[in-house]
């Protein structure tokens, strides 16, 4: 335990190196910009910037990605507040109260509240990252072939969560991903499968597929829409601060949203967009000023923003300790780990990798402070990005997609793969299929295949090996919950949204 604490402490010292600090500032600022831009998600931001981290050391690279993640989740609130356009789905609930505050001429106060709550939500989420993650990491050696098989099945249940609109379409997307994941050399016997050339020996490059499916398809979608002027952000005139009473008012809201956000974050398949609605709805239920809801409540903004940023730390736990990305952002982050040559999962906490992992954690803590600082300094400026026309955005994102995929191997094939996936992604999104499910299946498919085939090799074909350990059974139960919880969550989210809308006029009448 003492040893772990000292590694944690050293993590802070390493995180404070000039290059890391510089990357935190840059990453956070970039994340906020990306989050602020409607249509550019946190996942896209992380995927787009991923290639730039290849040349960095593992911890610095992870800190940049973490900074972009946190920044983007907060950044989404800026456009949500100013022009009622959530920059990311995670800020959907923020738009309800935030935009009302802007209409009341309190845009500055709303932005401050969002920034302040995001800071606390993110900072508190680091507590669970620090103290629950190592616990899970103790399981390292319990995970063998059979357990890895169940782990990947559990990961695949996220598809049910990310495709709440249509489970069938989600499963179709997942099946496509699994099929694509079989390309390359067979992991058990070394046989060539669907290989057109030796380029595909290691399978489809996940990063290329990711950039194509997430970013390039977005360019196509933007390009398809008519290039038009967006609504202008209102001029920010009021003071960007909260009084002491207002801070005291939102304190309990932030604490509740932290717990909600963290739990949702740990649950794979849930995510920030659900957390913000739950955080918002809980803040309303507990509020003493229900009459303000629907007319610009700082508690509503705080509840939503603290919850979605609390998800960040929570969602890293299954990614880093189990190697299971809970949502699309952490799926990209996991891709980043693999590219750095680190196998995500319990190995990250062994003696060799723990210093790097804790440097990343410390960086994650420090990033929250930079997010607060940059958020407060730059809110007025950030909002300007939302006013850019697509005519400027399209070429910038296109260049980043091409450069990003080429930078992986300096191989033109990577660009071809990226573009192919861009077209696939575009078509999938046009038909409401789920691109995140493809990426999940592409990452988890080989893990599951290797686990199942190796387990059956060991037992010489006896399937009982799959049900022979306690860990396997825990994972089987989690699989079942993983399938059921998003359906339940989806209902809760819809109910919360419905309640939030319905109760506003009702409340004002009662008062």
């Amino acid at each position, binding site marked *: 335990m003492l040893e772990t604490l000292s590694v944690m402490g050293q993590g802070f010292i390493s995180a404070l190196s000039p290059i890391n600090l510089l990357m935190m500032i840059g990453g956070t600022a*970039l994340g906020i910009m990306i989050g602020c831009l409607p249509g550019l998600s946190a996942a896209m931001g992380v995927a787009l910037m991923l290639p730039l981290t290849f040349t960095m050391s593992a911890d610095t690279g992870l800190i940049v990605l973490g900074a972009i993640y946190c920044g983007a989740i907060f950044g989404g609130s800026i456009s949500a507040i100013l022009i009622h356009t959530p920059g990311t789905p995670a800020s959907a609930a923020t738009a309800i109260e935030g935009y009302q505050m802007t209409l009341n001429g309190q845009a500055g106060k709303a932005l401050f509240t969002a920034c302040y709550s995001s800071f606390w939500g993110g900072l508190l989420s680091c507590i669970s990252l620090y103290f629950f993650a190592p616990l899970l990491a103790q399981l390292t050696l319990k995970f063998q072939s059979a357990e890895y098989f169940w782990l990947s099945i559990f990961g695949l249940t996220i598809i049910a969560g990310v495709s709440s609109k249509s489970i069938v379409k989600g499963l179709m997307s997942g099946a496509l991903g699994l099929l694509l994941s079989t390309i390359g050399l067979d992991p058990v016997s070394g046989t060539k499968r669907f290989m057109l050339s*030796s380029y595909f020996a290691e399978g489809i490059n996940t990063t290329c597929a990711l950039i194509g499916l997430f970013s390039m398809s977005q360019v196509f979608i933007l390009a398809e829409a008519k290039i038009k002027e967006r609504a202008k952000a209102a001029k920010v005139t009021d003071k960007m601060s909260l009084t002491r009473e207002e801070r005291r008012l939102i304190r309990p809201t932030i604490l509740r949203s932290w717990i909600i956000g963290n739990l949702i974050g740990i649950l794979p398949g849930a995510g920030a967009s659900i957390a913000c609605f739950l955080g918002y709805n809980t803040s309303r239920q507990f509020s003493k000023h229900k009459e303000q809801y629907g007319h610009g409540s700082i508690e509503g903004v705080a509840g939503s923003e603290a919850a979605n940023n609390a998800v960040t730390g929570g969602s890293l736990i299954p990614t880093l300790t189990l190697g299971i990305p809970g949502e699309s952002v952490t799926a990209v982050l996991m891709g980043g780990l693999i590219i750095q040559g680190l*196998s995500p999962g319990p190995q990250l906490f062994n003696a060799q990798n723990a210093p790097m992992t804790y440097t990343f954690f410390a960086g994650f803590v420090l990033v929250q402070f930079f997010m607060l600082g940059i958020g407060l300094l730059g809110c007025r400026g950030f909002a*300007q990005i939302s006013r850019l026309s697509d005519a*400027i955005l399209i070429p910038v994102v296109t260049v*980043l997609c091409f450069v990003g995929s080429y930078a992986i191997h300096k191989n033109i094939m990577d660009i071809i793969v990226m573009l192919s996936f861009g077209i696939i992604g575009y078509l999938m999104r046009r038909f409401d299929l789920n691109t995140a499910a493809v990426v999940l299946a592409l990452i988890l498919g080989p893990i599951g295949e290797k686990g199942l085939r190796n387990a059956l090799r060991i037992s010489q074909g006896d399937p009982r090996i799959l049900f022979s350990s306690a860990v396997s059974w825990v994972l089987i139960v989690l699989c079942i919950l993983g399938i059921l919880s998003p359906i339940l969550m989806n209902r809760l989210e819809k109910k919360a949204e419905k309640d939030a809308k319905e109760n506003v006029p009702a409340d004002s009448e009662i008062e």
Partner: protein
Amino acid sequence: MKKAVTFLLAMCMMLALAACGGGSSSQQEADGPFAPNGPVTMIVAYKAGNGTDNTARILAKYAEKYIGQTIVIDNVDGGSGSMGWSKLADSKADGMTIGFINLPNFNSSIVKELGTYKTDSFAPICNHVTETSIVVVRADETRFTTLEELVAYGKANDGKLIASTNGAQASNHIGAQAFANSAGFKYIDVPKGNTSEELTSLLGKEADFCVVKVADISAMAESVKVLGVFAKERLAEMPDVPTLGELGYYEDWLGSSRCICAPAGVSDEVIAFYEEAFKKTMEDPEYLEAAASFATDYKNAADTAALIEQQQAFTEGLASGFWY
């Protein structure tokens, strides 16, 4: 303001483009004894930060003094190494591009036909690093504590012992196969894809034994026990561990080698120049201090060529009916 933001985004694009930099220049060579007249490109077929990349960068740093030019490491990964080796084979044979080939993975890639190159597509310069394979079990293993007991147990429980490997037909699978074949027992191989998972499998009591390289267990002195080494003579760092040959099993050296090669067709002057430069580098005390963590093993061009051919014949032998 809007212009400023657009400018910022443009800067992002520039930054991304700048990250693609690092090209190499190839220039005409003059007559007479060869000396590179520009930066030398050194291809590593694995990504930056990989074991081969790390040792290559240390070598490159100290070799610059003897080569007289900057050495640029070019990581060309993918295709289980075949992308990099294909690029090296296709490079201009002007002495400005050299690279590492990794035995026996390189030989496996030829057997699996992952590239169009063969061993004669390369002109060997020298060997850089050699890692010897070893047979390991858990330190707390009670069923067998010596290699002979392991073999006896394997024979008594034919086809029951489990060995994790670092991948199908990868170096440690070749080792396990050579050991079991020569000792005359059957086992189940469990390909894990990489050495750390291979060792996790052993420690997690899924596998009963496995074959790894000496450097892989440097931080595991208390959790694993070495039963035998794949060498002709006992290793200096583990004098108590017998060789497999001593006990009557596989008697040749087995492990992995990182050889430096040029594309076939380079002049003898080029080979002689680099052979001499790397020999001096690998004898440089400053280099030896920096390279203390791995086993530098200089071999001249002729010996390296023989090693590559011997490993090729061995791997092809394995492929024909040796696997299952």
